[in-house]
């Protein structure tokens, strides 16, 4: 759902070390961080190891492996998660291809005891800002 809005337009930034982009909720409503079951990021065709991704929401930072117990920490639908990846980009070096897949558990759609897990992929090309 809303796959085309998962990477916020123009949000790629080059940092002193690494890069960041803004990840948007691929669903219509707030969900707790425990529902974020997976995040795969490729930049310019190269996979970023998931364990190296850092997620920042409301001033707190998490690794993907931290999320499963966080059923009381809400990701509000209007708020982006800032994702930091350890990949140095030079601002002004042209467009980069960002390829992001999010796996999201939908906590009210459960069939035979198994919750629905939606996978939403978004690919965008954009320049990195400083």
């Amino acid at each position: 759902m809303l796959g085309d809005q998962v990477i916020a337009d123009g949000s790629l930034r080059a940092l002193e070390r690494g890069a960041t982009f803004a990840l948007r909720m691929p669903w219509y409503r707030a969900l707790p961080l425990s529902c974020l079951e997976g995040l795969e990021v490729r930049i310019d065709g190269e996979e970023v190891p998931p364990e190296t991704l850092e997620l920042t929401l409301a001033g707190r930072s998490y690794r993907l492996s931290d999320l499963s117990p966080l059923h009381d920490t809400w990701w509000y639908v209007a708020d982006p998660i800032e994702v930091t990846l350890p990949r140095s980009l030079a601002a002004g070096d042209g467009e980069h291809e960002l390829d992001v897949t999010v796996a999201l558990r939908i906590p009210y759609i459960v069939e035979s005891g198994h919750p629905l897990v939606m996978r939403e992929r978004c690919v965008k090309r954009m320049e990195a800002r400083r």
Partner: protein
Amino acid sequence: MSPGASALPRLGVTLYSFTRDFHAGRATLEELVARVAREGLGPGLEVIGFQSFRGFPHMAAEDERRFLELVERHGLELSCLDGNVDIALRADRLLDETELVEYLQAQIDAAARLGFPVLRIQNQASPRVVERLLPHAEKRRVKLGMEIHAPETVRSPWVLALRELYARLDSPYLGFIPDFGASTRGISPSMFEAFRAKGVSDDLLEEIARRWRELDGKEFEAHEEIGRFIALAHEHGAGDHAVNLAVFAVGIHGHQEASAWSEILPHVVHVHGKFFDIRDGREPVVALEELIDVLVAGGYRGYISSEYEGWHWDTESDAFAMVARQQAVCRAALERYARSS
């Protein structure tokens, strides 16, 4: 409002219709509500708690005050607050019955504080959970509205179990919310057009339409059928589009006859006027006039809340204009009754 008109269902809208604008940051909650009023899409206003309110169901008192002021200023009427029955909130296990009851009591409280007459609930609330919620709902004077959404019908086993419970408990605080998307005549042509434009083959789209028609009148398990549609889409090379195609085809386009809603009408507390598109003055797959006939004939006098869902695949159309067009069709259908009464 004239006495004649008040004896008919009233129109309104759910802000879910404008999800794409809200999600993209093109409009705030304040702006959505103001535009609903300005364009005459009320008077009913329905809101999804977990979408419109930060911190739901434990919102900041200041946010609640501002929302109520907003609704008042624009002369809208709160029709329904959509709750969610998040039984799989935790990653390690499903919530147990007591945890789910407490989770939903907080949402009933939020509805009561804001003055919503109905809280929408979903089918992960078992009859036992609904029964345990009832005293709280009665105390807070909030009706529980169980949504019946595609591909479920008034005869789905879990709906039959609730109908039994409702008959036994006989409380005006227990009800259903029919979603018009449960009774469609086919898959929306606008969906096929959008996926064709994304490069999905005509062969696959025709096969999806054919398989969908084969489900007419059949009982099936939603997840099994969605699984079959996903496999079919993959066989045809639909790649990243496979899951969305299957979920949209099976999960929001239902097969129930419009007339079947009459079986539960005395318990209907709110209606989701689901639609996907309006062209040439009609919704191609949702029989709006027929559905309205069924509601009126069965004595329904609550809100028909326009719920535009074509935004999943139609990223261009103005959702407000879509709702206005759908309400024009609904209004014309209702006016036939106003004239004849």
